[in-house]
Every structure is written in structure tokens, then in C-alpha cells.
């Protein structure tokens, strides 16, 4: 099997699965989940072997519309990494869903959408031109909208789906605009042609293109200021919100930025913009995670924050560091979400204030969650430590001190919320939260869909534990892959430092970033240990910004206000159009036809003599014309 065929199969298999699942559902609904798992397994295996055996830059092309549009596959490490993550996380989601979604309705729709989503993500990553990328990008968008609103009978889920769809659409418009400008300029959609031709564009136009790409990535990756959709997306089943959105789809934006970094490099201010967006997002996400009481929301904000780091890395020109962190993050965040799913599945609530002492009931979940949280805050020798320090080191080398400061504050907050969440959920006593009780409950916690509130936790099914153990192991080991990864990058001509795992260790421990991040962790630990004092402070002082933070810092309010103004404007335009323009046309038509009929009434005298006179006069005129 050639790499080309394998690449093609990689996204055709999930698509075929998405097509087949609804059909099979007609006569054998009980087979559907297993069928979906099989399709997921097939594509993830192909992705795994493809990563090992890729010849450097082996594009294949297919004539989609002969003579007009030619699309192909781009197989390089940059594109295979998102594909690998999508297929593997997708496969784990499918296995996990066997237990998690058991007994839900409309399972065929669920599995078909998950498979379609996997196919879309892989297609997006492997596309060698902007048009195909945009097509699969939108396939992902539609699937994500449908999956967030999967429990569509719950109005909040339906609203969250619509919100995600609309918010990401803002970014999509930017992406489409950038693609159109590039395509008009070069007459082609292909990456390589466009990257060559982009240098010929005027700087303002190029700036517009760069801004469009950044906007697209910001929307899809839930970056500041379009991050608002991701926390709401947690209305979806945990499998979806966790894995599809937090661990997979949001990578698309980072991938896009890494892919178009040659264009961004041409616009001086764009990389600075990307740095600041990433740093602000990292800080904002960590802050919001620290003040959230909804387990899935904490993880969602945490994802936003970690994506901020990746965007920051792209902004300092370290695409490899960003992808390395993306790889680590997919593993530890997938682990955290799966643990959260097991917890929610077991006790039927998402409010961490009602949790506590769960270690006794589910030790495996508690230990794996702890491992994931340690990787998240960057404890040495876990994968998150290496990749995050790599990013910070690159930021230091890039001399972006402002964003670095924000990123370090974010790292301290990350340590704080990771520790807080882990200990409150698994070791603390079930008790009111330590500082948020006096605050308005900004987030109304729904009961986790159909599960009843249970005092005695359910046991965790085995098919939910196996992925946890696998991912926990991967948290310890995945950074060892840095050597092969960087070799593959260099082999396909992408900028990456040549690093082996040993060199990575040496570099990491001897760098300034190591000290910085250890300090950040220490500060976070200090904050965590002082949480009782913090709680008292917040109780007594109740600073305004805390209140704001618990409400998502007012972004939702701002956007609601904006949307209302836009709707008011639309109403006004509609009013003018209906009441003035259209009604005016109606009135004029009525007036004109009435006037014309009055005029023509004059002709109808009803008097036979006048009629005869007109007839005579007409005849005379006609005669005169004929004779003359």
C-alpha cells in the first residue's frame, strides 16, 4: 500500500463509515457502535503506520474538476500530526462511547457524526490546497454544531450549538476572505503556489490576508476574543465536548496558523498580533478556569489557555514547539476529559463543589486524573513539562517579553487550578466551595442530562478505564517521540530544531524557561496552599473582578449586547424596507393605477353621440393620414 493510497483511505474510511452507519442502523441497530469503532480503528491504524513510513513530501493530485480544480494530498509531519491526533482521539472516543452513550437515543446519528467529524479533520489536515481545506474545515464546523446540540431537546444544548456555529462562522468569514484574496492573486488554491505568489502582494492586502487567517484560527481554536463558544459547548455529551472539541477540533486553528506561517512571516505586525492573542488567551483561559466550578468548564477554559500557548509559539515562529505541545496536550487533556466524563457519569453532576473524596470510590480515575493534571501544570518528566518549557524557551529566544510575562502568570494560575480541581474532586470533603459561595451562580449547572443524582457513585465500566490507563502511560512517554518528530520535520523541509530526547532533556533543564516555569509552579502551589486565606479575602472584600471572572469576564454580555444592537439595526433596516420602500411602491402603484383608470373613464362617456363623434373624428384623422 502506497502512502498516497493510505492517505486517501485515511479520510475516506471515516466518511464511508459515516455513510454506512445510518444504513446499518435500519436492520441492525445494535451493531452500530461496534461498526463505528471498527471504522475508527481502521483509520487510526493507517494514520499510525503512515506517520512512520512517509516519504518526504509525497503529494498526490486528483482532478476534482478537470481543468479547473485539482486537489491533492499533502503528507508531511505538520499535516500528519493533526490527522494522527484526530483518528486516535476519535477512536478512543468511539470506544469510550460504547459505555458512555449506552442507552441514549439516536445513536446512529451520534456515531455517524463522530465518524464524519474525524474524516473532516483528517481531510482538513491532509489537504494540499485552500479550497479543500476550507471545505473540510466547514464539514468539521457542521459536525461540531450538530454534536454540541446532540441533546437538542435541552434548549441550552441547542443554544450552545447555535452559539458555537455562529461564533466560529465569524472566523470562517475571515478565512474565506483570505483564501479568496490569495486565489484571485495567484489563480490557484494550492498552498505552494500561493506561498510563492504571496510575496508579490502589496503589504496592506497581505495584511488583510494574514488577518483573515488569524481570524479563522481564532474562531476555530477558541482564542481570545472568540473563545466564548467553547465553554458553552460543554452542554454536549462529555465524549464530544471533551475529545472532539477540546482535544481535536481546536487544534485546527493552530494547524492553520502553522501551515500559513510563511504568509504570516511576510507581514511584520501579524506575528506580534498572534503572540499577544496567544498570551492573552493563555492568561484569560487560566483565570477563568481558576474561577469556575463546573468540572467540564474548568477543562474547557484550560484548553483555551493551553491553545493560547500554542498560538503564542506560532507567533514567535516556533511552529514545531507549537505542534509538539499540541501533541502533548491532546494526550493529557484527552485523559483529563475522559476522567471527568467518568466522574460525571458516576455521580451525575458537574459541580465540583458537590464532589469530594472520590478517590475512595474510583482510585484508578483519581490517579490518572492526577497524572493528567500534573502534565497540565508541567511537572518535570511529564510530557506537558517538556513541550510547555520548549514553548517558553522559544518565546524567550524570540524576545517577546510582554507575552512571556502573561504566559508565566498563566502558568502559575494553571498550577493553581490544576491542583485545586484535582484535590477538591478526589480528596477534599464534599463541602461548599471555599470562596465562590457568596458569588452569584453565574453558571447554572444542569443535571448531567439523563443521569439521576446519585449518592453512591456508579462503578466505572472497564471500557472506560482502559483508555484512561493508556493515556496516562502516554503522558509519561510521549515526549520521547521528540526525536523522530523533529527528524521527520527536517526531512520534509519544515523548520525545526534537530533534537533527540536526550538533547531535549539537557536543553530543557539548562534553559531560563525551566527556572521560570518552576517558579510559576511554585507560585501556583503557594496560591493553592493559601487557598483558605484567599477564600477569606474574597469573602470579605469581594473584588469586582472576581465577580466578573466568574461570569466569564463579561464577554458573553458584551457579545449579547452587540448581537442585540445588530438585531436592532436589522429590525430598523427591515422596517425601512417594509414600511417605507415596499409600502411606498405599493402606494404609488395604487395611486398610479387609480389615476390612470380615472383618466380612461373619461373616454367612456356612455353617450352614443359622443362615441359617434369620436369615431368620426378618428376616421377623418385616419383618412387624412392615408391621403397625405
Amino acid at each position, binding site marked *: 500500500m502506497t502512502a498516497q493510497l493510505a492517505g486517501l483511505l485515511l479520510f475516506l474510511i471515516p466518511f464511508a463509515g459515516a455513510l454506512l452507519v445510518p444504513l446499518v442502523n435500519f436492520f441492525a441497530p445494535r451493531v452500530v457502535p461496534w461498526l463505528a469503532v471498527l471504522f475508527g480503528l481502521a483509520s487510526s491504524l493507517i494514520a499510525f503506520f503512515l506517520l512512520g513510513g512517509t516519504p518526504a513530501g509525497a503529494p498526490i493530485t486528483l482532478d476534482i474538476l478537470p481543468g479547473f480544480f485539482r486537489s491533492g494530498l499533502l503528507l508531511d509531519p505538520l499535516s500528519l500530526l493533526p490527522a494522527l491526533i484526530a483518528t486516535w482521539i476519535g477512536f478512543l472516543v468511539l470506544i469510550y462511547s460504547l459505555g458512555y452513550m449506552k442507552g441514549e437515543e439516536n445513536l446512529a446519528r451520534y456515531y455517524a457524526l463522530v465518524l464524519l467529524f474525524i474524516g473532516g479533520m483528517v481531510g482538513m489536515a491532509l489537504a494540499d490546497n485552500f479550497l479543500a481545506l476550507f471545505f473540510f474545515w466547514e464539514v468539521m464546523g457542521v459536525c461540531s454544531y450538530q454534536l454540541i446540540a446532540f441533546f437538542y431537546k435541552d434548549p441550552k444544548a441547542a443554544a450552545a450549538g447555535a452559539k458555537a456555529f455562529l461564533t466560529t462562522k465569524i472566523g470562517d468569514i475571515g478565512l474565506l476572505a483570505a483564501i479568496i484574496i490569495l486565489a484571485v492573486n495567484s489563480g490557484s488554491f494550492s498552498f505552494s503556489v500561493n506561498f510563492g505568489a504571496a510575496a508579490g502582494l502589496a503589504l496592506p492586502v497581505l495584511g488583510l490576508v494574514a488577518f483573515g487567517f488569524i481570524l479563522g484560527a481564532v474562531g476555530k481554536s477558541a482564542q481570545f476574543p472568540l473563545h466564548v463558544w467553547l465553554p458553552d459547548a460543554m452542554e454536549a455529551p462529555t465524549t464530544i465536548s471533551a475529545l472532539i472539541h477540546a482535544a481535536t477540533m481546536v487544534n485546527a486553528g493552530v494547524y492553520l496558523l502553522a501551515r500559513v506561517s510563511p504568509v504570516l512571516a511576510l507581514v511584520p505586525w501579524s506575528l506580534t498580533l498572534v503572540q499577544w492573542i496567544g498570551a492573552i488567551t493563555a492568561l484569560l483561559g487560566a483565570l477563568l478556569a481558576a474561577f469556575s466550578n463546573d468540572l467540564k468548564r474548568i477543562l474547557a477554559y484550560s484548553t483555551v489557555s493551553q491553545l493560547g500557548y500554542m498560538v503564542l509559539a506560532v507567533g514567535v515562529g516556533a511552529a514545531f514547539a507549537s505542534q509538539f505541545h499540541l501533541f502533548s496536550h491532546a494526550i493529557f487533556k484527552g485523559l483529563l476529559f475522559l476522567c471527568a466524563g467518568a466522574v460525571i457519569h458516576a455521580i451525575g453532576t458537574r459541580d465540583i463543589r458537590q464532589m469530594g473524596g472520590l478517590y475512595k470510590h474510583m482510585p484508578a480515575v483519581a490517579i490518572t486524573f492526577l497524572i493528567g493534571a500534573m502534565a497540565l501544570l508541567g511537572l518535570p518528566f511529564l510530557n506537558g513539562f517538556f513541550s510547555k518549557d520548549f514553548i517558553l524557551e522559544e518565546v524567550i529566544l524570540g524576545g517577546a517579553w510582554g507575552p512571556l510575562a502573561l504566559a508565566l502568570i498563566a502558568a502559575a494560575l494553571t498550577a493553581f487550578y490544576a491542583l485545586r480541581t484535582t484535590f477538591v474532586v478526589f480528596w477534599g470533603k464534599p463541602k461548599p466551595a471555599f470562596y465562590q459561595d457568596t458569588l452569584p451562580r453565574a453558571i447554572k449547572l444542569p443535571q448531567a442530562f439523563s443521569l439521576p443524582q446519585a449518592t453512591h457513585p456508579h462503578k466505572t465500566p472497564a471500557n472506560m478505564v482502559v483508555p484512561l490507563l493508556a493515556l496516562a502511560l502516554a503522558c509519561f512517554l510521549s515526549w520521547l517521540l521528540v526525536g523522530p518528530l523533529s527528524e521527520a520535520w527536517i526531512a520534509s523541509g519544515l523548520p525545526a530544531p534537530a533534537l533527540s530526547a536526550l538533547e531535549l532533556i539537557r536543553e530543557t533543564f539548562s534553559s531560563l524557561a525551566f527556572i521560570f516555569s518552576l517558579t510559576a509552579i511554585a507560585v501556583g502551589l503557594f496560591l493553592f496552599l493559601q487557598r483558605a486565606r484567599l477564600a477569606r479575602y474574597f469573602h470579605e472584600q469581594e473584588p469586582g473582578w472576581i465577580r466578573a471572572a466568574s461570569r466569564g469576564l463579561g464577554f458573553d454580555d458584551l457579545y449579547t449586547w452587540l448581537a442585540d444592537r445588530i438585531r436592532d439595526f436589522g429590525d430598523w433596516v427591515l422596517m425601512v424596507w417594509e414600511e417605507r420602500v415596499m409600502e411606498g411602491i405599493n402606494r404609488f402603484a395604487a395611486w398610479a393605477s387609480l389615476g390612470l383608470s380615472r383618466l*380612461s*373613464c*373619461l*373616454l*367612456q*362617456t*356612455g*353617450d*352614443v*353621440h359622443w362615441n*359617434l*363623434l369620436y369615431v*368620426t373624428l378618428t376616421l377623418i384623422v385616419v383618412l387624412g393620414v392615408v391621403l397625405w
Partner: protein
Amino acid sequence: MSVNLLPFVFVLFGLGLFCLLTRRSLVKLLIGLELLGKATTLAIIWAGVVRGTPATTQSIALLVISIEALVVAVYLALVYAFHRHNQSLDTDDMRRLKG
């Protein structure tokens, strides 16, 4: 033939038209109409004399006369119906179609 009939035709036509435009009685209108018809018939015959094809035009004139007889019959029937309905022959009573 040395007499020119054309002025006579015009006079007859003018009288018929004048009658149609000024009289109000439906019967008088019929007379005016007949005068117009006769003027036309005469004009047709005179045209045949002038062009030297009297036989053709005279046969056309015969046809016109016979058709006129039909027209008169229909006209009289309408007038009769009108009279039965309105007990009047005045055209001032026929203004229901005024716009």
C-alpha cells in the same frame, strides 16, 4: 354619363352623419344610419362607373343592400327590446355605461 355623382354622395353621407350626431330618437338614428349606408352604396356603384366595371360593383352593391336589410332587422329588434324595457326611445336613457 356626364353627371358627377360624387358631390351627391358626400352630401348624403354628411346628412347621415349629422343625423346620427344630433338626433336623439333611436328611430331617427336608424334613418341616419341608412342614409350613411345609401351614400356608401352609391359611392360603390359610382366607383364601378368610373373604373368601367359596373357589373362587379353593382353586384357588390346588391350584396351590401341585402346585408343592410339584416342590419336593419337586428337594429329594430334591439330598439324594440329597449323600448319594452324602458318605455322610451331617447338615447339620453342609455347612459348606464358611463365611466
